[in-house]
């Protein structure tokens, strides 16, 4: 398995990125805040108004370092991509499958199965740990409901029905998500998923972390030579990384939702770091974003046993491992795509 390299997050708005030899420099005014060799990085993620020199973009594109720009709240704005690389035959196979509704259904089923299974797992784990403290009847009901939905996914024959199953499952899951938040219930009360803009602090956390995950999924597909824009489940739209979004479905509960819950329940966040905008949208301040990024990076470095590969890998490499398995299935080396199922 590949080594997990580091990701540089630039959150201070006055920073400017430049290149010197093989180094990435972060400049604030005249001062060099950081100088790091480019081969230690696999991505650079910028938030706010950070600038970057064309020479640096050149270097990143050449070395396959994913450089992306996001708004302060984490919304994706732009990315520097180099030449299309990888195996043309593999990509052609991907396009052909994406064009055939029957074949894409098989892939879509894998992603949704993973999603529903992992959502159920998040709830079950919660019940195992806190089940005795009170009757979480709602959560138990949701677990039962999700089990039924899993059956439906397996038997599903039509992609629109599958999307329906996904929607119902997500509604049931997010419907009981509030029960899983144990601290500062007032601030972090979760009444439902809201996005663009997120309307409460919990949604702001989720949205921000989903963006970080999307960045990783996108680069994972680029690395294995698949086209991140051609998906099987999500409809294609110009500029939308459909395949990355497909993969995210199964990874969200494990990588993001659990992290969000532990950040809140371990009181790593403070209500005063959230700012409510005139539009009703909630964003985080710079300090808060740094805390979140730090826990995300630490989490990525933890190691888990990959249930399918049977190998210990860093959590941050899971998107890469899944992208690789997907490519293997497309190539015909694997009979089916094994979604990532948490334990």
């Amino acid at each position, binding site marked *: 398995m590949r080594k997990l390299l*580091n*990701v540089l997050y*630039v959150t*201070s708005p006055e920073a400017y990125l430049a290149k010197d030899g*093989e180094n990435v420099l972060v400049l604030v005014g005249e001062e060099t805040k950081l100088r*790091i060799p480019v081969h230690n990085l696999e991505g650079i993620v910028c938030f706010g108004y950070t600038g970057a020199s064309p020479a640096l973009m050149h270097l990143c594109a050449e070395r396959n370092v994913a450089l992306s720009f996001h708004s302060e709240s984490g919304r994706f704005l732009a990315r520097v991509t180099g030449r299309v690389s990888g195996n043309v035959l593999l990509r052609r196979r991907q396009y052909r499958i994406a064009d055939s509704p029957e074949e894409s259904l098989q892939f879509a089923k894998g992603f949704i199965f993973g999603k529903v299974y992992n959502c159920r797992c998040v709830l079950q784990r919660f019940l195992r740990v806190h089940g005795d403290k009170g009757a979480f009847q709602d959560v138990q009901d949701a677990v039962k409901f999700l089990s039924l939905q899993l059956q439906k996914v397996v038997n599903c024959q039509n992609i629109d029905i599958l999307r329906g199953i996904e929607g119902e499952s997500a509604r049931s899951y997010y419907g009981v998500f509030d029960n899983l938040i144990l601290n500062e219930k007032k601030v972090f009360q979760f009444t439902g998923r809201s996005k663009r803009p997120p309307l409460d602090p919990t949604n702001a956390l989720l949205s921000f972390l989903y963006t970080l995950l999307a960045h990783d999924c996108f680069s994972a597909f680029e690395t294995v030579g698949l086209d991140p824009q051609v998906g099987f489940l999500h409809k294609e739209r110009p500029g939308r990384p459909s395949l990355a979004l497909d993969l995210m479905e199964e990874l969200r509960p494990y990588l993001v939702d659990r992290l969000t819950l532990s950040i809140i329940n371990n009181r790593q966040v403070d209500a005063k770091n959230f700012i409510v905008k005139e539009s009703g949208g909630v964003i985080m301040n710079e300090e808060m974003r740094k805390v979140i990024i730090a826990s995300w*990076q630490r989490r990525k470095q933890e190691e888990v046993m990959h249930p399918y590969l049977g190998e210990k890998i860093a959590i941050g490499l899971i998107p890469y491992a899944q992208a690789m398995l997907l490519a293997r299935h497309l190539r015909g080396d694997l009979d089916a795509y094994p979604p990532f199922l948490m334990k």
Partner: protein
Amino acid sequence: MMVLITYDVNTEDADGKKRLRKVAKQCQNYGQRVQNSIFECLVDPVQFAQLKRNLEQIIEPNKDSLRYYFLGKNWKNRVEHVGAKPTYDPEGVLTI
């Protein structure tokens, strides 16, 4: 793996000064300058081979000296820092 590189380049003549600058530049491309002629480089074996070759083409073997210390994967247990010139951890959280 982490490799610590130290060098002594003879700078008695202009040629030596040129070599010194070149050696420093090469090391900087692969790692972090922790003290004046000491670099910590987090590299894989291929990158190390490249760096080694580049350096050994620059130096004058009968005047200059180069030393590599291999700190391996668990280098963090083997390094302690006291005092000025704080460094960053290339495997840690990088936010600015």
